[in-house]
């Protein structure tokens, strides 16, 4: 999984470099906040999807990172207690606790990495999406005037 991150970054970098030449403004907005370029282009549904996906991934990443740091501290404490045990009962208890904390740190590390890759993936897909589909959508609201009044039409694009 760790090999994917530099690959995604390289893809995103080359994509950004190629857009710089083409000058697609919305791509830069998507590079800054995933989904923002889509919203500017009128694709509110898709933009909202990217934004909320990124928000969920980053929130999970922050929470998992804090919990991981705590789990590592607890593991280090349990390990120190195990290595300094002077009674077999304490050593057995701390040994089991140390394993438990290590497993917990492993799980949280996996969750943290998954959230990180998801955040980078959403960010990269948002940029690529903006490059491929950077066309100005129909405005969400249109007004057509008639002889006896006017009609307001709302549209939603994905």
């Amino acid at each position, binding site marked *: 999984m760790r090999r994917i*991150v*530099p690959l995604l*970054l390289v893809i*995103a*970098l080359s994509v*950004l470099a190629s857009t*710089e030449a083409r000058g697609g*403004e919305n791509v*830069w*907005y998507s*590079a*800054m*906040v995933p989904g923002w370029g889509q919203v500017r282009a009128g694709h509110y549904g898709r933009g909202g999807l990217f934004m909320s996906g990124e928000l969920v991934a980053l929130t999970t*990443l922050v929470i998992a*990172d804090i919990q*991981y*740091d705590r*789990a*590592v501290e607890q*593991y280090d404490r349990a*390990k120190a207690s*195990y*290595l300094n*045990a*002077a*009674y*077999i*009962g304490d*050593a*057995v208890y701390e*040994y089991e606790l*140390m*394993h438990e904390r*290590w497993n917990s*740190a*492993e799980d949280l*590390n996996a969750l*943290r*990495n998954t959230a*990180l890759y998801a*955040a*980078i993936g959403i*960010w990269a897909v948002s940029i690529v999406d903006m490059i491929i589909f950077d066309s100005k959508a129909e405005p969400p609201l249109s007004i057509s005037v008639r002889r006896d009044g006017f009609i307001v039409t709302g549209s939603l694009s994905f």
Partner: protein
Amino acid sequence: MRSFAWCALGAIAALCISCGADHQDLPTGFAYDPPPTPTNLVVTGGEELSTITWSYPAGDRGSIRAFRVYEYFESYDMIQLIGTTTDTVFVDSLLIGNLGYCYKVSAVDTSDFEGWRTESVCAFVRSAR
């Protein structure tokens, strides 16, 4: 706008670098080899004292440096170290009579590591006449 986007890219790159695993590898295997538990623990209640005796575990006299004697408080499931001896007998004196006293014993090896404690054994202590 473009500089902000480059900053976002830099932030993500920094995030990737900072997300390394901090927990080290687990120590492999259980590192301790405790001294064996003393056997044949017997407690005899006397007049305001109790005599506690036990035996060396079979065939393992060499690794044991001393024995620790604990008083065990059954009601609270707590123990208190009352003495250390190299002998296999210990006398707990100046006790209050008409009460039951419980004891546990453990062996300590040459590196000062303590093995499993025995099950508790109790005796009734009489008052002095």
